[in-house]
């Protein structure tokens, strides 16, 4: 290793002699069946990577069409019905087929066993099943699309969805119903694995924060998703047989649907963001060579978010004539759930203090995350505040707010994680310069797309409008321009990551000089992960331990 201090921590093996390991999980077996029947968590993670990327670009295409239609006030690109199908598909695909499974399915599957020093997840077959279930749900969603689409909005609001639409509501509802089981299976698998499969010495407080975040998200998946499944079944029964549970004419309660739906769909937001927070903790620690500031607080804030996240759902219904007293309670709880997120942001910021910081691509995405998630979180406080919510709810303000959280937060974290663990997954580095360009492009494009939407929201433009009054056009044009930049920013990684599979520099086992157990084995790892189960004999994020270990290895070899 060179002694001069460079501006990067990346240390790669000598490229003239470096080679990928002879045998690893990718080349261990060949043939389609070896992938389709694999029980290896790393291969399943790659299956997830292909599928979520596929659905991300389909969902993204719909986003592009939506923004294109909104370039002009008139509904001139497509008819209103078609526009309604566009935003429904965009929402369904991005939420249920991309954001919910993306980080757990890809990074969680790949890394949880590696990080806790296990050879696989607790239930490898269940893991494969969860991918098949996901694909079945995804295929059915595409079927609903190909058969003619669905225009309920991703929220399936009754009685619109049950009595007033002639589109493929049942197909779409069943698709989401099925996809939910994939989420439940993944959650169970993670919970059991984290409880039962930790290597000797890996106590709860020696676990990387990535695991705490996934543990909290898994709890939400297991406890929340069944409620969504129930709700969708009730919608289907109401539509098919008119059982009347949501129909006021038969003594049903249309607000009941809202309660049931948001009982899942608010925690779902945390299912999408918590794993991302786990990624951020790992990257920030590694790129500033420091233990995360206040590890315990960050770990418990994940659990607190999961816990409080279940008791805020009614803040989606403040204007729907719910009792004022319950509104008071839910608004208060909403304020409380914002606090753990604030704690995390400050803890990450102070992790940088007295660190030794480098600015590789994953770190840039993390900085993007911190900025955008802060805005997303604070604008959530607007909506949690009872009186303010009246004016802002159901407008573009809400759209901008949740895109800041889920795209500015969740997607930025996903990209940070993909770049960070790309060398571990593939054995090769991504190209640094162009990927930095992509990170910056994404950040600029994102802000240009969604900042104008806050203003549109306060002006009162309702969401899900195919046409809008002409005075709102300027801000919509800005937003569409931003979306174009954003789309470009998302295409880039797709291209250069594929390129890097063949031409990327050989990464070696630990290019980041990171402390996690996953970095102490070859890249890509062998099928069995660890030749012998490791013993966690040091604290988490212990850079001194790593330095000593490296020194010892150099001495031994030399």
């Amino acid at each position, binding site marked *: 290793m060179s002694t001069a201090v460079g501006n990067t921590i990346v240390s790669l093996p000598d490229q003239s002699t470096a080679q990928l390991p002879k045998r690893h999980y990718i080349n261990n077996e060949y043939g389609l069946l070896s992938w389709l029947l694999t029980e290896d968590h790393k291969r399943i993670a790659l299956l997830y990577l292909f599928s979520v990327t596929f659905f991300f670009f389909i969902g993204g295409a719909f986003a592009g069409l939506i923004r294109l239609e909104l370039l002009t006030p008139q509904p001139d690109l497509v008819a209103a019905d078609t526009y309604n199908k566009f935003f429904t598909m965009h929402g369904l695909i991005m939420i249920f087929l991309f954001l919910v499974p993306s980080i757990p399915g890809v990074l969680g599957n790949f890394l949880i066993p590696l990080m806790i020093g296990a050879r696989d997840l607790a239930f490898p077959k269940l893991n494969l099943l969860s991918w098949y279930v996901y694909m079945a749900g995804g295929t059915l969603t595409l079927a609903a699309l190909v058969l003619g689409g669905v225009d309920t909005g991703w*929220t399936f609001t009754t009685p619109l969805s049950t009595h*007033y639409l002639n589109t493929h509501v049942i197909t779409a509802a069943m698709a989401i119903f099925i996809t939910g089981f994939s989420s439940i299976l993944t959650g169970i698998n993670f919970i059991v694995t984290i409880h039962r499969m930790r290597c000797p010495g890996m106590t709860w407080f020696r676990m990387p924060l990535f695991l705490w975040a996934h543990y909290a998200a898994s709890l939400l998946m297991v406890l929340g998703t069944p409620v969504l499944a129930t709700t969708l079944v009730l919608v289907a029964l109401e539509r098919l047989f008119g059982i009347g549970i949501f129909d006021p*004419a038969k003594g049903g309660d249309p607000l009941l649907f809202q309660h049931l739906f948001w009982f899942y769909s608010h925690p779902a937001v945390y299912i999408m963001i918590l794993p991302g927070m786990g990624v951020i903790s790992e990257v920030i620690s590694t790129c500033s060579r420091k233990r995360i*500031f206040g590890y315990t607080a960050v770990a418990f804030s994940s659990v607190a978010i999961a816990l409080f996240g279940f008791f805020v759902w009614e803040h989606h219904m403040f*204007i729907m004539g719910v009792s004022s007293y319950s509104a008071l309670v839910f608004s208060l709880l909403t*304020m409380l759930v914002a606090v753990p997120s604030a704690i995390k942001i400050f803890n990450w910021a102070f992790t*940088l203090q007295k660190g*030794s910081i480098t600015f590789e691509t994953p770190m840039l995405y993390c900085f993007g995350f911190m900025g955008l998630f802060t805005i997303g979180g604070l604008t959530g406080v607007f909506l949690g505040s009872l009186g303010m919510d009246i004016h802002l709810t159901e407008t573009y303000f809400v759209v901008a707010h949740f895109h800041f959280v889920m795209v500015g937060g969740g997607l930025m974290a996903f990209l940070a994680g993909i770049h960070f663990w790309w060398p571990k997954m593939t054995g090769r580095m991504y190209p640094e310069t162009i990927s930095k360009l992509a990170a910056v492009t994404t950040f600029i494009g994102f802000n240009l797309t969604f900042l104008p939407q806050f203003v549109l929201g306060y002006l009162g433009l309702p969401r899900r409008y195919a046409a809008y009054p002409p005075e709102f056009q300027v801000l919509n044009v800005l937003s569409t321009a931003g979306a174009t930049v954003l789309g470009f920013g998302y295409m880039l990684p797709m291209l250069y990551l594929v390129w890097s599979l063949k031409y990327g520099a050989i990464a070696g086992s630990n290019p980041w000089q990171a402390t996690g157990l996953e970095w102490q084995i070859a890249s890509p790892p062998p099928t069995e992960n660890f030749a012998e189960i490791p013993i966690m004999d040091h604290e988490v994020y212990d850079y001194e331990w790593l330095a000593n270990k490296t020194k010892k290895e150099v001495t031994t070899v030399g």
Partner: protein
Amino acid sequence: MGLSPVLWQFLVNWLHNATLFPAEASTIAPYTDALYFFLVLMTIFGTTLVAVLVVVFSARYSRQRSPVATQIEGSTLLETTWTIIPLAIFLVVYVWGALLYFRIYNPPTNAMNIYIVGKQWMWKAEHPGGQHEIDALHVPLGQPVQLTMISQDVFHSFSVPDFRIKREVIPGRYSTVWFEATKVGRYHLFCSQYCGTQHSGMVGWITVMTPEDYKTWLEQSTSGQSLAQNGERLYASMGCNSCHNGTAAARGPDLAGVYGSKLTLTDGRQILVDDAYLRDAILNPSAHVTAGYAAIMPTYQGQLSEDGLIDLVEFIKNMQSDYRVQQTLVTAASGESAPTTPPQAAGER
């Protein structure tokens, strides 16, 4: 608001002219905007703080300047600080928001009432004097107006951004919202809850007029029949008067003056009779039987449109004696047109 009214007006007008901000056209708008500005400042402050921390630490502790990191476990003092301070700010927002919520949703007692029926994809406004409007609503300046709203099909949401008010319009139950306009002009009315194909076409205009102009408008737009008069006809034609007629032998309770009173039901519940109760009692009588009466009333579910229900509710609301009901019992067949009811045009109640 702690800001000089002149500066406030300047700020609001400047933002409005730059199309960054809606007009302030109701008494509520300045209150909402004050909280909004506070929240915007909070967001700018919070985001700037995070950005400054990241940039300063990045510059000061970059690998070139700080080759070796100093390990820090954490700091209870610092962590408590950034738990307590955000919590305190959020609690201020909570209390402020709650006060605003009650201000927006609690109507003053002198508010005049207008009925709104939402349906795919139009807004229908019904004034007590019988004026009907589609996708439009005329209201007087400086007079609190309460809207009693219901949907005939799916969820809609009645949103007037320039008044900063919005309320879900729900099938099967009345919801209410009120405002007091402070500026003459035309303001957007939006449906903000996704309601199907023509959701974005379910828009209209609120026209705020001076009280004199409004009076002229009321006179010119009347359909000749007030809602209560329509209700009276329905009351006779649906046969309500055969039981609810206030005679000694009546099989149904006397409805004169029932509105606003407290009823005891057969199941012992005490109920305040309001618009929603009247509507429910017509559609689902068996669950709303007044103590002392038999549950013999049939349901009118499916026989009355929401407009018809509003007419009936409005009639019962304004029914002070049974005199005219008993008259209709005798003269229902005579074909004589109903005499005009006392003035109950909006603005005079």
